[in-house]
């Protein structure tokens, strides 16, 4: 298909979105990621039954924490698609990138630079 999607995205592969933990998401922000999105299989279609449902809950947990610590819960989102939906994958990548661009960089980055100076 040779679809294009923004090259600002770094893909971290996991065997199932059920493997994604709140801590993985938080650490990404701690290290300066501007946004994190989790792309799982369609709900009801998890090979491991409820991996994507678990991921959704964890994304919600991360969202709540990020809101409380001033990073902004909008920077994290869960998407669902089937493995045959390549165009949708690219579409979601564009959607998330536009959203993060509108939100601006992770405030942690600026704060880190200030502290280092």
């Amino acid at each position: 298909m040779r679809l294009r999607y923004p090259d600002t995205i770094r893909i971290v592969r996991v065997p199932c979105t059920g493997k994604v933990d709140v801590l993985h998401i938080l650490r990404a922000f701690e290290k300066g990621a501007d946004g994190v999105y989790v792309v799982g299989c369609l709900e009801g279609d998890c090979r491991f039954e409820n991996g994507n449902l678990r991921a959704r809950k964890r994304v919600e947990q991360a969202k709540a924490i990020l809101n409380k610590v001033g990073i902004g819960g909008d920077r994290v989102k869960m998407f669902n698609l089937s493995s045959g939906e390549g165009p949708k994958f690219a579409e979601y990548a564009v959607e998330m990138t536009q959203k993060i661009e509108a939100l601006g960089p992770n405030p942690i980055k600026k704060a880190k630079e200030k502290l280092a100076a």
Partner: protein
Amino acid sequence: MIVAEKKPIEEIIDMVKDHEKLLVVGCNECVTVCEAGGKKEVGVLASALRMYFMNQGKKVDIDEITLERQCDHEYLEELRARIDQYDAVISLACGVGVQFMAETYFNTPVYPGVNTCFMGVTEERGVWSERCQGCGQCILGRTAGICPISRCAKRLLNGPCGGSAKGKCEISKDLDCAWQLIIDRLQELDRLDDYEEIAPIKDWSTERAGGPRTVVREDVRQ
């Protein structure tokens, strides 16, 4: 197990905001099982605090460790060599662990990271409910293994009261009437005659009403 709930992050932030070097200490026992204060929750809280303080432009060092237990000297002693490096400790153990930490390290401020709720069971993941109030004089043998002290809102020894309707307690339609449960189980065990026996007045001095309690076992004491 002892069931606890995570404290809101903002409450923890408010407690520790004036410190610059913090140690977040988890506990591998009950609070790990009820997902409030184990290794994972330590990681999440430490990460959240780091982000918060960093975002505020404040340099706060936050380290993490999870002990096997915080209610035993031998595990708390593992912190002895490094405790002086920290301005304060956030303990994610139950109230017992927090206090024992404070007793053991008298000069280090210790803050609780969880709200300790009760002694209870995991009904299903994410749902915990109370089963024991530690009254010091167990009557489960007479009540078909169902505790009216912890599960009856009035702690009745000879129930049910008039507020029991269709097996539910009057304080909540979601709460089973403990005495209905007792009767049902006695019936199942073919022991309904036991129900006819009037329970004597309970000695509440072994409960919290008698003041803080201590158990001393001379047979095992060293």
